[in-house]
């Protein structure tokens, strides 16, 4: 028998431990990186001598580590590190707020669809299927083109294109939990439907909801970077990780550092949330196997 045929039950204890350790170590690293990014964006700007919108045209295109500008300056002589930190505030906030809105919509839609089933469930879930037919970036850009761009619009639109996966998860959970004894007992006690849905069923589905929420933050940060890079998200002079890359392509030959810092920040943040979500999935319920 080769190593390839070993199932998880046949693994040596050490191997199984290594497996858990490896998984959790990545999730842990993700959590630490997220903490560093959040703290850096929140408090970093107070420690820097430069303002993120301060223009110093004499010092434009200063490369990283030249003088006081640790990450260099951009085409207007603004400090890249200061913009990176202020951009982090915007990008991370959008990621988290969009997640909260998407979760709220997804949980409500999923709970109603899963609890009532029948026509209500079918209509709601077909709506979910229909919205999922639109490729996310196309839908997001079309909606962004029709509205006034800005912080609030971008956040709401990202949430509007990200709630469907949550609705599917919650619907499946609520539909399965609805028949369980505790739900039937609550019904026998005379609890209202709303109470059973949101005080009994949804809290019992908290594990997959938390996983979905974490992965949703990653998705929202990524989507913000796409719309802002394409010019329909956060508008200058305000910085976001996406719109810092807006002009980077033009200056790729002369000032490549402009493209590196924000790109690395986005990748770090998204990877960290994805690993955290993966780790949570393994930790909370190993049988929950959504690829």
């Amino acid at each position, binding site marked *: 028998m080769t*190593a390839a045929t070993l199932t998880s039950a046949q693994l040596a204890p050490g191997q199984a431990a290594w497996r858990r350790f490896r998984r959790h170590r990545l999730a842990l690293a993700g959590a630490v990186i997220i903490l560093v990014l959040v703290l850096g964006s929140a408090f970093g700007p107070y420690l820097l001598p430069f303002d993120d919108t301060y223009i110093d045209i004499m010092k434009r295109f200063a490369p990283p580590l030249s003088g006081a500008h640790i990450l260099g300056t951009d085409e207007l002589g603004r400090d890249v590190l200061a913009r990176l930190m202020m951009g982090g505030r915007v990008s991370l906030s959008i990621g988290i707020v969009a997640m909260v809105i998407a979760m709220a919509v997804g949980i409500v839609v999923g709970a109603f669809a899963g609890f009532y089933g029948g026509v209500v469930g079918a209509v709601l879930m077909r709506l979910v299927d*229909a919205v*999922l037919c*639109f*490729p996310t970036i196309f839908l997001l850009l079309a909606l962004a083109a029709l509205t006034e761009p800005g912080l609030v619009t971008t956040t709401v639109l990202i949430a509007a294109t990200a709630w469907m996966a949550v609705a599917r998860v919650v619907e499946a959970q609520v539909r399965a939990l609805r028949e369980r004894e505790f739900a039937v007992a609550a019904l026998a006690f005379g609890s209202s439907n709303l109470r059973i849905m949101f005080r009994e069923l949804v809290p019992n589905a908290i594990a997959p909801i938390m996983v979905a929420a974490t992965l949703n933050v990653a998705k929202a940060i990524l989507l913000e970077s796409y719309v802002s890079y*394409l010019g329909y998200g956060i508008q200058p002079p305000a910085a976001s990780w996406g719109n810092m890359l807006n002009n980077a*392509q033009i200056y790729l030959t002369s000032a490549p550092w402009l*493209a590196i810092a924000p*790109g690395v920040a986005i*990748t770090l943040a998204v990877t960290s949330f994805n690993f955290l979500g993966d780790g949570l999935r393994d930790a909370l319920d190993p049988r929950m196997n959504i690829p």
Partner: protein
Amino acid sequence: MARYVVNRLGQAIMLLVIVSAIGFAILHMAPGGPLSQFAASAQMTQEDLDRVTRQLGLDRPLPIQYLDWFGRMLKGDWGKSYRDGEAVLSVISSHLGATLELMATATIIAVLLGCWIGILGALRRYSLFDTLATVGAMIALSIPTFWFGLVTIYVFSVKLGWLPAGNRETVGDGSFLDLLHHLIAPAMVLALVETAMWGRFMRSSMLEVINQDYIRTARAKGMPEWRILTVHALRNALLPMITVAGLQFPTLLGGALVAETVFTWPGMGRLFLDSIGYRDYPVVMGILMFSATMVLIGSLLADILYAVVDPRIRVG
């Protein structure tokens, strides 16, 4: 089988109706609605606007307008571009070829590379290769496609000078080799996310199959390992990949939009962004509906194909 197909087709048509209703709602969300193009002109008086409203039938109740619009969509009348007055459908079809070329190339790379990585990862589970592949796939899924494009341009065009930084062909050349040369970088960039997805799905599908009883039986009767893998494991593990192809389609289309933008590739995605820039709403809406319909048809075909190759689906 026929019953399954009819059933699935019915679902798809119902979904198309909902999709079109969403599209119609978005169209009417535009500032000023479908009238905005006329309202923007200073010479238009309120009287003119009222007349246009009547001419376009915009004073009728919304459900009637929707039915009218949906009927015209079905007949292939998707309106005219604000920019040059060309029919939306012909504008889209003239850009479709470049997009399909990019998507097909990226898919071929992703399927071959992704399946290879996934199968090898499943066979050597928790080996160094598998660990690196799993972590690598997660990072690949987290990198913004446009940024990976920028890095690719910087490394292969700016620094090494091996690949062109954009466009589909050199002006005045356009030979097969020239086209291929231009295709490499955008296809590679688009293939990154796809490869990661295919690898992940392939790995879990292969792991599922490898632990089945019939594999153990094959092994017990002394069948050579390569034959077990190719004849029994791989054939069954590849089946669910048909569904993955359907599921992947929206991501692939979205990725193509981004890759086309970075590499100034003259495809549908770039046309979409240009049209947004020009506030050319008929083309924007046309591409939005077109892409959603493509996704719908893609998932329908994937489901039907899956039922053809796997009888368990259509019976159960």
